């Protein structure tokens, strides 16, 4: 896992500032980070410590003020907007705390969206969406609008959407932050399955039970990485028990 060829994400001296002068806030401060292919990494820290900003930088949703960022062999921080969009479309999947589903589209139409953006035929996009919704356990909710789904169901639809174009890495920002324990457990099980399938995961959370399900945990404070811990149980173990969540 530590061999250079297996490193999927590499950040060197990553920095992101907001504001100027006295009101300058260094949201991400000189972060060095590597994520191996197939690894599940949890990023923890208190609110406002820069976890989400780091995730946005890793996913090309935001640009660093300084530093280097690599995804595989490709340097990401210097890419044009167009190339970054291509990257987000084909190689990165996002899951947000607030789900960010399109309210006027059904669950299936939401999941089809990235495939349509990638230029796939509507028929292929639909088939893939059906597969993913089935995999996420919400196939029976395919024709429902987000407003008629529970929080857990919405997040599972959002995860299905993130997987529509078979990304190399899934970035999740507080994926269980808006969910009750049972729904959170369902989502974590889904992540476990994805992880076991070899997908690289970076999960930002402030919940140590969620973080405990990862292979590795990094802690942040005031924009900087302040600690790192390799976890032994990880997602390959009995996830729910390890995380202290009650199963059904």
């Amino acid at each position, binding site marked *: 896992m530590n061999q250079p060829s297996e490193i999927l994400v590499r950040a060197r001296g990553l920095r992101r500032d907001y504001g100027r002068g006295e009101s300058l806030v260094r949201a991400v401060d000189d972060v060095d980070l590597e994520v191996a292919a197939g690894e599940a990494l949890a990023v923890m820290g208190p609110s406002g410590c820069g976890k989400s900003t780091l995730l*946005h930088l890793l996913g090309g949703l935001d640009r660093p003020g300084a530093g280097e960022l690599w995804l595989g062999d490709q340097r990401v921080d210097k890419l044009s907007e167009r190339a970054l969009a291509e990257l*987000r479309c084909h190689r990165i999947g996002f899951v947000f*705390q607030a789900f960010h589903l399109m*309210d006027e*589209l059904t669950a299936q139409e939401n999941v089809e969206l*990235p495939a349509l953006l990638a230029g796939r035929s509507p028929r292929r996009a639909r088939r893939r969406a059906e597969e993913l919704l089935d995999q996420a356990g919400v196939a029976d909710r395919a024709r429902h609008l987000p407003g008629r789904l529970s929080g857990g169901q919405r997040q599972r639809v959002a995860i299905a959407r993130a997987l529509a174009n078979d990304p190399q890495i899934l970035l999740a920002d507080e994926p269980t932050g808006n969910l009750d324990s049972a729904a959170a457990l369902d989502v974590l099980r889904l992540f476990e399955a994805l992880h076991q399938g070899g997908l690289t995961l970076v999960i930002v959370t402030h919940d140590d039970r969620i973080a405990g399900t990862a292979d590795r945990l990094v802690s942040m404070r005031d924009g900087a990485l302040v600690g790192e811990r390799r976890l032994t149980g990880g997602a390959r173990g009995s996830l729910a028990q390890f995380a202290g969540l009650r199963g059904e």
Partner: protein
Amino acid sequence: MGRAFLVCRLAARDVRHHLAEAVLLVVAIAAATATLTMALALDGVTSQPYQQTRNATRGPDLVVYITSPSQAAALIHARGVVASSGPFPVASATIEADGRTGGLFAEGRSEAPAAVDQPDVTAGSWVRPGGVVLERTFAQALDVGVGAGVTISGRRFTVVGIAVTAAQAPYPNLCYLTTNTCGNLQTDGFGSEQLGVAWTTEADARALASATVPLDDFALNLKLQDPADAPAFAAEHTPAPGPIISSPADQPELVISTWEGIAAADALLVQDAQSVLIPGSLLLALLAVASVAVLVGRRLSEYARRVGLLKAVGGTPALVAATFLVENVALAVSAAVVGLAAGRLIAPLLTDPGAALIGAPAAPSLSALKAAEVLGVALVVALAATLVPAIRAARASTVRSLAEIGRQPRRGAVLIRLSRRLPVPMLFGLRLVARRPRRALLSTANMAVTVTGLVVVVAFHTSVAKRLSTAGLGPTAGGLSDPVINRDLQMLGVLTVMLVTLALLNAVFTTWAMVADAQRASAVLRALGARARQVSLGLVVAQVVAALPGTLAGVGLGILAFRAAVSDGGTPSVLWLVLTVLGSLAAVAALTAVPARLGARRSIADALASEAA
């Protein structure tokens, strides 16, 4: 009392907090009310100049056209007649000056002043042998001044004077009163709108007669003891109406024009301006409704929270509705005041009575009733756009309002399904239209009204060009210029500028509202891999798709409106219509592209964070 105070205070604070939007709202309504004010203020502005001209020229109460001088005695000695002049011979002739030609009504006069109807010479001198005096509007149309040489029915004359009269309607409305007065003069292919008046000596007028156009018209001017008796006198002495006159032989022996009829013909110039301004103000009022609706709609989600807070602290639904309405009604009243003031200031620029009359027009009058009409229009505009949101706000759930749960987007299943096969910008654009159909409808209506106005203007220009070229009129055709057409073009020009300005403002408001509303959808789409350019293009597509049906409807409505207003109005060329449609859509696309590009520059993370917050 306390509640009224609270409502007023909340309204005042909100206006202060959103000053730019309040100003835009006032501007939109004021444009409509100012135009209406101008139209209403033009009522009767020519009556004073006509009276001044009538006094200065010893204007007659009646002008009687007879076919033989022997008919004059009975009229001169009729009951109520206190003074007269004539009968003067009137020759039908043609006039040519520097390549411009027209029909002429040449009245033979004594070199001595007449007791009734002595035209007021505004330049040069009165008639003399070989010297002609031209009526002022006709001289302007021919573009000749004192000293110029003109050819009248083949004879050379020198223009020795320019004069105005209260006894004839001015060019080009000489035959407005009745075609009978011009029946004999419509010679050599000149239409009634190409006829003017001139005065020569009696000998010169008689010399203009020929075997083909004999001298068989005489003008007799009568002054009555009471000018108000003129219509009754005319009715008493005019023969019963005959059949439609088809040849000079069918002419009745006697035709009478009253001074009121002549005054009405003089007012045609200003009435034409009114006939353009009144429908124009209606179009502007419709655009103002759209402006207010978009501005209010933009702030509905913000309002929702305010409604929730008011209700949470004990505000009743009526109080909530009142708060919403008072602010917009107050702004509408302000707009009406601004419109009234602006209209009253601008109206004098439009009240030039024309060259036919002397003296200054009266200051445009605005009675309390007219001011109330303008205020009423402003209130209707404001209420049409805000009443429904106010009622909806009053009935909204407190919890939902506090949670700022705004209007959920609509699901347009058909458009969503259709868009799946389209490129990303079209996919996004159509889905945006589908999620806010009412806003799209507003854009459609905005374009329909704007293009209707533009097509009317284009149709008018086409019609004028056609009329001038077929009649050999207009400076470019080497013919006569038409003061009525010139005034109409001036009015249409002013109206077009206002219409386009308001339409542009509306397009900007709508675009801003749409870009703001689509912020989250745009950010999500970009997070999923759409390029910023695709998202920007999608926003443009959404606006153009909404504008397209409005533009096409506007073309049809514009043609219908023009045909309804101008009975012999034609249709603009297809090329002009296509250019109007493409130009309008290009303007919409360009106006959308700017905020769309600006929106696309915003970081995706920021946009998503602010929506989630």
